[in-house]
């Protein structure tokens, strides 16, 4: 019983800690999404994507073939 009891101070900290972990996870998800978008527009090898984003790749100094 005493092992599972949480003190007031701990209980006060828990939601904050959980909230921060969730914030970290959501931030990492957003970063992954952002890198994916930049990767497709700037680095994808697909010809159609290359042709559509051609001027942007040159203007952003992404390597372009």
């Amino acid at each position, binding site marked *: 019983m005493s092992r599972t009891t949480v003190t007031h101070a701990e209980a006060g900290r828990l939601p904050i800690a959980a909230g921060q972990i969730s914030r970290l996870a959501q931030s990492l998800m957003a970063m992954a999404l952002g890198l994916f*978008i930049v990767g497709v527009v700037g680095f994808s090898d697909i010809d159609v994507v290359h042709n559509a984003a051609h001027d942007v790749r040159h203007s952003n100094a992404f390597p372009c073939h």
Partner: protein
Amino acid sequence: MSTFRSIVFSSVVAGFVVGAMVTVIQQFGTVPLILKAEVFEKAARPHRSEAAAAATQETVAAHDHAEHEHAAETWEPRDGLERNAYTAAANVLTAIGFALLLAAFFALRSGNAGSRVSWHEGLMWGLAGFSVFAIAPGLGLPPELPGVPAAPLLSRQIWWVVAAVATAGGLGLIFFRRSVPASIAGLILIMLPHLIGAPELEHVETNVPTSLSHQFVVAVTLTNLIFWSMLGGLTGVAFAHFDRDTSHANAT
């Protein structure tokens, strides 16, 4: 998912504004130079000697755009409005992608410090993005015009990513660790990809004038400076706005 939603909303808003503005700026800066270079690129193709063409094929992933050799096979936007529309869309997407990175960092920063990111802090992060994604890769692989041969694409893409990651890591060590050994390690990390060296060709044969290439480097760098400054500042303001809204909603 309130944090994720705030990040996405602020990135989409900032991405649309910055993507649209940069598209306009590019029409005066980089795009006219690309179009000029394409004239040289097209002029060079029929006159290229067989020997030069063979040498190019051996050593070079030449700057062959699909439009020249696969016109019938691969779709490409028509010059003019259609081409510029796709450029605008790609600019907006790129801006949203980079804004997602920035806003995610803002979420972590404001979460840890318990304070909001100001436009000024956003601008500082934008300048960090400029260093990581424009200056560092551009130092080894200067912005290139169509018609200028370059080393094989994949090797350049790998080096570009390595330079960006190393610079981001190095700046992180310097700014967040705040110790002498970490700062020295950070500086070494930033320099490392340049000491290894970017992939390049031994012989570059092009009829694109050097002055045009130089103008292009300046135009690309300045455009990127504006892009990152605006993206940093606007994403900072937008994220502070949406994040405040969601924290209000959670509280009530």
